[in-house]
């Protein structure tokens, strides 16, 4: 569950997952850096895989927006739509920059 507060993307995370979050965030940021590099080199297969992974893992932790954008990257990479890929990756960048996590029982 997430909501936008001006420039902030607030994500509510189940407190039971708190100990997993640092590792999870590091993994997602690494994947995102790989995505940017893959876009630069037009590696669509890599983008498809990275998007697929992000889609599969983020929602379970409560980061639905990241998961959705990951899904868009996967789909855009499938049809090699560079414009849509750039747009989704820019949105991901904004999202990562403005994420704020709050632990709350859902």
């Amino acid at each position, binding site marked *: 569950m997430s909501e936008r507060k001006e420039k902030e993307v607030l994500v509510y995370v189940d407190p039971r997952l708190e100990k*997993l979050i640092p590792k*999870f965030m590091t*993994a997602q940021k690494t994947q995102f850096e790989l995505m940017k590099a893959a876009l630069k080199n037009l590696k669509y297969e890599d983008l498809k895989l990275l998007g697929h*992974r992000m889609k*599969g*893992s983020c*929602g*379970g932790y409560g980061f639905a927006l990241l*998961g959705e954008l990951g899904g868009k990257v996967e789909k855009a990479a499938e049809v090699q739509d560079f414009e849509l890929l750039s747009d989704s990756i820019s949105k991901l960048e904004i999202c990562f920059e403005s994420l704020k996590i709050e632990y709350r029982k859902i």
Partner: protein
Amino acid sequence: MARILLIDDDQTVLDLEKLMLVEEGHEVMVAGDGLQALELLKLYEMDMIVVDIQMPRFNGFQFVNTVRSNPQLEYTSIAFSTGNKDKDSVVQAAKLGADFYLIKPIIREQFLGKIREHFLVKPPKTHPRIELQEPFLEEVKVHKRIYVSYISDIGVEILIDQDLEEGQVIELSSSIFHEVFSAGPLLKVLWIKPHDTTLKKAFLVFVDRNVETVRKIQGFIQRKNKSEAALKYPKWR
């Protein structure tokens, strides 16, 4: 509760699924791809395998195909946990003999609910619980036929090759530890675990990767002897 093997190339997914299942009381093992998982299946009997489809080296379909061709693994339930929503993948999974199909992202109640529901129909077998994960267990090989393990909430245990005679145990223990293992309570402990072949196999694999020197073990045993173990096995001093 059940023993469940999770297979996924995304460590964050493994972490999440494992946490949920452990909270439910299940015993969970993980593998990063199908080949690693096959190695684990040679050692442990599983009640359920939860496997992703898209993985490097050996994907989920190849893995399930291999498992379902093995009659020894007939009882093991298989669930796919995947981001693939397409009809072809669902049909392929069913054809290969999967018991059910979960679509990522993992939603706690759906994930656990489906597994609970499945175990009502096909209950898990009872397994000897294997506690090999750090920090709960330290163990070392002191001789090719004697192993020492330390389980934090139990105390010190000695595993002896089940083929050894009592006289050989005494001989080996005195030559290695400069102590004779012959006291009643200790002997009982000595002979319980070696008959558990599953534990033994798992233990041997762990030991092969963690062989220490005899000197270190002697220090280790003396240290443990002075603490909890001494309380539990007072004759072993």
